[in-house]
């Protein structure tokens, strides 16, 4: 058995002229999939909240809302399922060296995720096709496994990604063999897992909440002052508004974890060239020759954030050879984009929550609604920027400090052709999703919105 479980002799690293294209292809697939994941995480809870309001009040408006949202949820889940399938194909298509060497270490996470995916697919069908066919209570209950599976699914996938950031649960022998594999320990005894999972889970509520809210804020701005639109605005916006400040606390948690396990990545986030005591943060600017030029310096803030001590020593990029540093400016730009947008989202959320608590009503001024409209797409940008920061920040490693991305890549020809094909296919896919969302939004309200107990199909 031993002679085939090692990478070096079986799948030796190959020359791949298109490594960057392979990475971009993976990144594209990921960028298309991850906003859909947010809907998988958060949308079931929003739909269930609306349905719960119906069960409690008997008000058919909430049922109409839940029912219409559930159709959107089903369509987005279908697209998310296939784009997720593509990602799993690409694990082998693009990174066979990685799979061959470490599939036995992290694969279990995906195997368990498969069951979550099953549960999601089964109950989303029962839920959406079960309107009017199940008793109201049974129907509500059939939606709960969707929300639970959304959580366990992200737990499993993030466990793999967290392992790539902080690989444990195996031993690398001097000859390059991966031995003493302990998959459960590798995936679930990883201190990186919980901050990363929480950060992504809360991000799911931010993205789904602000995007849905943005759609109804647009309608409200266009003069639709119906109770339906207002309700559909309040539910996602309120949930996202609370999630946004929470995300700042969670972000601080994960940042300290990064400082501890991936100091080089943290240095790239901030463009810290040299190991520094009392390290500053720069807002904006550009990293050139070991320092940030033209940025606004905030002294000691990085030390404060990374170690909660303004005089702490923060490791700079100079701690590792140049070949082991990520592309600093891209990572830094992505990180600053995420933090900047996150701050804006927290402000929008704060205005909403404070107004609600002080005046007993949500802010409905046009300027606030415009900010909500902006928050929708910006939250997606922050999501993708955050993933760029964490994944590009991991480079040149696929398994941090253990295996380089160049050792993982496929030796097959034709990556540019595949990449170009995928660009075409995904452009069409995005257009198709936009089309179906517009169509679903334009279907006339089927239930009488103002309280009549009439239900027509």
């Amino acid at each position, binding site marked *: 058995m031993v002679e*085939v479980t090692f990478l070096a002799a079986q*799948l030796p690293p190959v020359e791949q002229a298109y490594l960057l294209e392979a990475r971009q292809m993976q990144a594209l697939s990921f960028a298309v999939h991850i906003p859909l994941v947010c809907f998988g995480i958060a949308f079931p809870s929003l739909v269930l909240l609306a349905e719960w*309001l119906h069960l409690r009040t008997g008000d058919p408006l909430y049922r109409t809302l839940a029912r219409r949202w559930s159709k959107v949820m*089903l369509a987005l889940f*279908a697209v998310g*399922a296939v784009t997720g*399938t593509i990602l799993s194909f690409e694990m082998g298509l693009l990174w066979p060296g990685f799979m061959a060497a470490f599939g036995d270490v992290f694969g279990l996470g995906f*195997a368990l995720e498969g069951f979550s*995916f099953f549960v999601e697919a089964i109950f989303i069908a029962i839920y959406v096709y079960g309107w009017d066919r199940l008793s109201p209570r049974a129907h509500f209950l059939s939606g709960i496994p969707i929300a639970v599976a959304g959580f366990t699914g992200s737990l499993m996938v993030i466990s793999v990604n967290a392992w790539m950031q902080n690989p444990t649960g195996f031993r690398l022998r001097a000859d390059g063999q991966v031995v003493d594999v302990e998959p459960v320990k590798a995936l679930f005894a990883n201190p990186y897992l919980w901050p990363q999972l929480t950060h992504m889970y809360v991000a799911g509520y931010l993205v789904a909440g602000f995007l849905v809210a943005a759609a109804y804020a647009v309608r409200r701005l266009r003069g639709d002052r119906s109770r339906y639109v*207002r309700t559909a605005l309040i539910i996602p916006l309120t949930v996202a508004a609370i999630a946004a400040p929470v995300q700042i606390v969670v972000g601080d948690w994960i940042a300290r974890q990064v400082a501890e396990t991936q100091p080089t990545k943290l240095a790239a986030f901030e463009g810290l060239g040299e190991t520094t005591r009392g390290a500053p943060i720069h807002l904006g600017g550009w990293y050139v020759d070991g320092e940030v030029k033209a940025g606004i310096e905030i002294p000691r803030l990085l030390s404060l954030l990374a170690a909660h001590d303004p005089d702490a020593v923060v490791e700079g990029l100079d701690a590792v050879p140049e070949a082991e540093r990520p592309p600093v400016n891209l990572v830094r730009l992505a990180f600053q984009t995420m933090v900047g947008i996150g701050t804006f989202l927290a402000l929008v959320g704060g205005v909403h929550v404070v107004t609600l608590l002080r005046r007993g009503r949500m802010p409905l001024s046009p300027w606030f609604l415009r900010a909500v409209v902006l928050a929708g797409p910006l939250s997606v940008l922050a999501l993708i920027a955050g993933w760029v920061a964490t994944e590009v920040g991991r480079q040149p490693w696929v398994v941090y400090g253990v295996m380089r991305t160049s050792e993982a890549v496929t030796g097959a020809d034709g990556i540019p052709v595949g990449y170009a094909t995928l660009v075409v296919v995904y452009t069409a896919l995005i257009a198709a999703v936009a089309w179906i969302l517009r169509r679903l939004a334009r279907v006339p309200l089927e239930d009488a919105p103002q309280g009549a107990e009439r239900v027509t199909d």
Partner: protein
Amino acid sequence: MSLTELPLLFVLLGLTAYAVLGGADFGAGLWQLLSAGSRGRALREHAHRSMGPVWEANHVWLIFVLVIFWTAYPVAFGSIASTLAVPLFIAAVGIILRGTAYALRSGARSDREAIRIDLAFAMSSILTPFALGAMVGAIASERVPVGNAAGALWGSWLNPTAIFIGVLAVAAGAYMAAVFLAGDARRIGQEELAQAFRRRALAAGAATGALALIGLVVVRADARALFDDLTSGPGVAALAASAVAGLATLALLWRSAFEPARYAAAAAVAAIVGGWALAQQPMLLPGLTVQEAAAGRATLVAILVGVLAGSLILFPSLALLFRMVLRGAFDPGATRHGAERHPRHPLRPPGSAWPRMLATAGAAGAGLALFGGGWREPLGIAVLLTAAAAGSVGLVRLALCDERDIDVLDAAARVRRKP
């Protein structure tokens, strides 16, 4: 059976489920293509409606196969995925088309739009089964060596055996779809539709059978070793079982016994998958036995425990879904319940003490998370998240109770506001 072979058994079971259920789903797309005219509308609608609640779950079997395979046999997975990159990518494109077509279908307003969307689905129903079948053919005919893209990028899967198995997969899917759709049509009382699919099932079944016979000749000429393994020992028993099950399906279809025909058709596919496994064992890839390819003991045990535990959730859930489908719970006209009708409890804003309580809890959680260190961090985060979840529900209620700015209620609201 040893621990090293057990994951392969899971993979083969998953592959059989995918070939039967996923294959039937793709086959439905093929029938939509073949009834694209206006007369075929009923057929196309039936194919869409019938697959709606189950297609997604049917496709998860492929994910199941992939993830078990790459965890248990990582080197073999890397070798297969890199050499067979082209058919794998083609299958991926087909799967994107399938999911997108399904998502779009609910938005179609005219028959013309529906036809266009079904066309995307139909393309996927040729692309994906063919590509995946060709991959099976490439592996079975020993054209995937161990190594990173060590086999031929094109020749590995564009050869007589692989092409034949690809075509067979497309045909078998169409066959299975017609059998299933005939049964579903009868359940909803559309006997005419059932007979239309019965005729299609008979034709597709005969074609698939004929193809299988021709295929034996092709395989004999192209991959003699595979042919010998298939026609001797346990391999031949599996082939015979498949032939018997296939003939039984045709006989049942002839007598319009659609329900048993479903299971006979599934058995025919299962026997083929089993036959392939028996023919190829103990080799996984040329020069690599299943035992050599297997991951270490800890991983195999983890897979075993994980799959068994997962099955405890999966199988009851699947049984629930399929029982509902087969009993017609989702069929048109099965509407039994409407909206909740119990007396209304109008929404009231939550009491005035709760925001302070939750805010305090949230702040305490945040404080612990930020400054607690060690085990207090996750505890603080947990408290914060709980307070946030409870606070969300409370604030939503608070916001919904305020109806001052709604047009229709303006008058009533104005009255209420006057002291």
